């Protein structure tokens, strides 16, 4: 029984440029609709600013910008996923967030390496469930990207 439990992880699925990404559900504090963002000057370009999340000032990053994807205007479906990792509490803007699923650990494969494609640190692997291809995001790496940029700035 415990073996089965261990081999499954509950994740939240979100959409980014028509692809589906997942993050562990226990890292997610809440999912919000787009709130008014106050720009914070002189920060990395993917830092959209801060929001007032029920009295707590929470920084917001735009994942599309962070991953160097094409920017598009926000839509009805745009969501902010508030994640909490170690000391950080950060909101990530994604195209849509609509699903919570269980993925068996064994279905996770390392990121396919193809010539011409660039491997990135912030992806842990991919999982194929039925017809869906889910990309596992490494939150630690995603949050770390801020630091490198900041030191360059400073």
């Amino acid at each position: 029984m415990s073996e089965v439990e261990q081999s499954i992880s509950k994740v939240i699925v979100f959409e980014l440029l028509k692809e589906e990404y997942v993050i562990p559900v226990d890292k997610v504090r809440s999912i919000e609709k787009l709130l008014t963002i106050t720009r914070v000057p002189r920060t990395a370009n993917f830092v959209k600013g801060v929001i007032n999340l029920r009295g707590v000032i929470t920084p917001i990053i735009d994942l599309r910008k962070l991953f160097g994807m094409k920017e598009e205007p926000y839509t009805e479906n745009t969501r902010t996923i508030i994640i909490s990792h170690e000391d950080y509490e950060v909101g990530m803007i994604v195209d849509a967030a609509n699903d919570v699923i269980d993925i068996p650990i064994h279905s996770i494969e390392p990121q396919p390496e193809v010539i011409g494609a660039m491997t990135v640190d912030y992806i842990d692997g991919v999982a194929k469930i039925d017809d869906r291809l889910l990309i596992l995001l490494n939150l630690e790496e995603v949050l770390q990207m801020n630091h490198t940029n900041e030191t360059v700035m400073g």
Partner: protein
Amino acid sequence: MDISQYLEVFIDESKEHLQTCNEQLLELEKNPSNLEIVNVIFRSAHTLKGMSATMGYEDLASLTHQMENVLDGIRNNKIKVTPAILDVVFKAVDYLEEMIFSIADGGNGKKDVSDVVSSLVRIENGESLADGSGIEQTVQDTIKNQSPLNLSSKYDEFEYTVLQQSKEQGFNIYETQITLREDCVLKAARVFMVFEVLEQVGEIIKSTPSVDLLEEEKFEQTFIVSYVTRVTKEELENRIMKVSEVESVVANDVSLDRISLQKDTNDETKAEIAVATEEKTEDMSSQSVEDSKNSRNQQKAANLNNKTIRVSIERLDILMNLFEELVIDRGRLEQISRELTHSGLSETVERMSRISSDLQNIILNMRMVPVETVFNRFPRMVRQLARDLNKKIDLQIIGAETELDRTVIDEIGDPLVHLIRNAIDHGIETPDVRLSNGKNEEGTLILKAYHSGNHVFIEIQDNGAGINKDKVIAKALKQGVLTEYEVESMTEKQIFDLILSSGFSTADKISDVSGRGVGLDVVKSTIESLGGSITIDSIEGKGSTFLIQLPLTLSIISVLLIELGEEKYAIPLSSIIETTIIKKDEILSAHNQKVIDFRNKIIPLVFLEDLFEVPATDSEDEYVSVVIVKKGDKSAGFVVDSFIGQQEVVLKSLGNYLSSVFAISGATILGDGQVALIIDCNALIK
């Protein structure tokens, strides 16, 4: 048993008890003969022992137990208080403190305390008191002489009349001494049961200690009840013995003659006390005075207990956050009610606004803590330092009740410790030097806290040697911090400020206490990070004063809201000198730097819009709004688009993710729920 949920309470209460021990030990050192103080210490130690044994901290419990034995000896006049004994007890308390702190940090509270334990045992056995035995004997003798009086109760006039009348009507009067078993758990309950038994067949005139104290279990095993009844002594004793956990009952006849005698002497001595308080000695009047004092103290303590509860600061923070949420919704409601113009609605909303602003005051006040929580560890520290350095120091604490925000309290401790160490080590001279300088042998250190306006001031004043200006200058020149030319134009204050810069120590000798030149700069930066400032005043030969200015609270500040393009920013009022509107052609250019001539002073301009890369809006105004801000004696003008107004805002951090944003010290939530960033003026003025 899962004890983790009690751990926090245990740690808090233990710290309190240790604090009491420390304070009372200091008191005892001043009045070694006052046994009431020993009792207070004993009670704290006893509670501590019980708590730590329950929580399973054996080392803690056994050390406390040993300390308690010694205190018990002192209390029963078997051991005489000497500085040597106090030192050992102080050391024991130190160890206890260390253990508690180790538990608080998640440790197991274990520590090798054998040295202190063995010296405590030695004291307990009287080994170190070989020469004191003679005195001890006499003390014991006097105690013996006193004891019959101590055992009996004293009666006031009313009680005496009652007794007299009862006697006349043929009642028996007994003074019943009831002893509970040592292992009795619910002493108050047993007392209650005894009283109930007694009430059935007679009337209780008086109990010693008083009923209040009995109910609070503030007695050892024995208490005395003065009782009027028709039943015989034996029957009375049997009845009381039926109550479980009663060890023994001894009923004594009371002769009214003796009481009246007592009454007389009582009155006499009371009169004596009124004339000359000095003269009260070992007679029973002093006992009664002490009794009443004792019960008063205990009553006071009881009142305090009833009126406070423990709430963790986290919960208060949560409350604060929820409340802010409420404020934001209130803002929205106000707006909606204005739009709807429904009289009932707007009345309700107005009422709600008033209530919520009252609520805000209360919540903010809850976070305020008296500065005493920091100050109360200093007497102990000063005593130790004075001993280590062979100096005589009189520490005076004034205004310990002054309140400060909890966050400030947490941070201010270390800087104060440093300044006090500094004052004792460098400031106050050794007794012989002081005497040869025509000063009192004992140096005075005054620690003073007080409110003024929106700030709290903490003053550390010593009447020691003061700061030698020439020495500071010589040192600064040697270290190349200053040039001869600069020295000439420096004010006294500026010279003193030098000792706050890093790597600066004028002490000739480096001691364990201070003088390594690290520290005062840390003190300065800590205080500045709290939004405060520190200034030094000193007269050589007379002493120095360090004045710390702190904001009342860190979480609420007054700001000027300004607009840059469409964005709103806040500038702390504490940095603003004034605001002004100038014509564009008044802006001058000096070597690529825009400046203005403001009140005959050239002030550099900072264009916030450019600095913060605000999306440009076209405004071809003839005038520009400027906020003049200061940092120390430097100033600058911030060019903004428009002023919105002054507001009290709640300061919040941007979170760990955005920990070091340039020129932004935090953010706040405005009435409409939007976030406004707070500009860090210190970062913008070089």
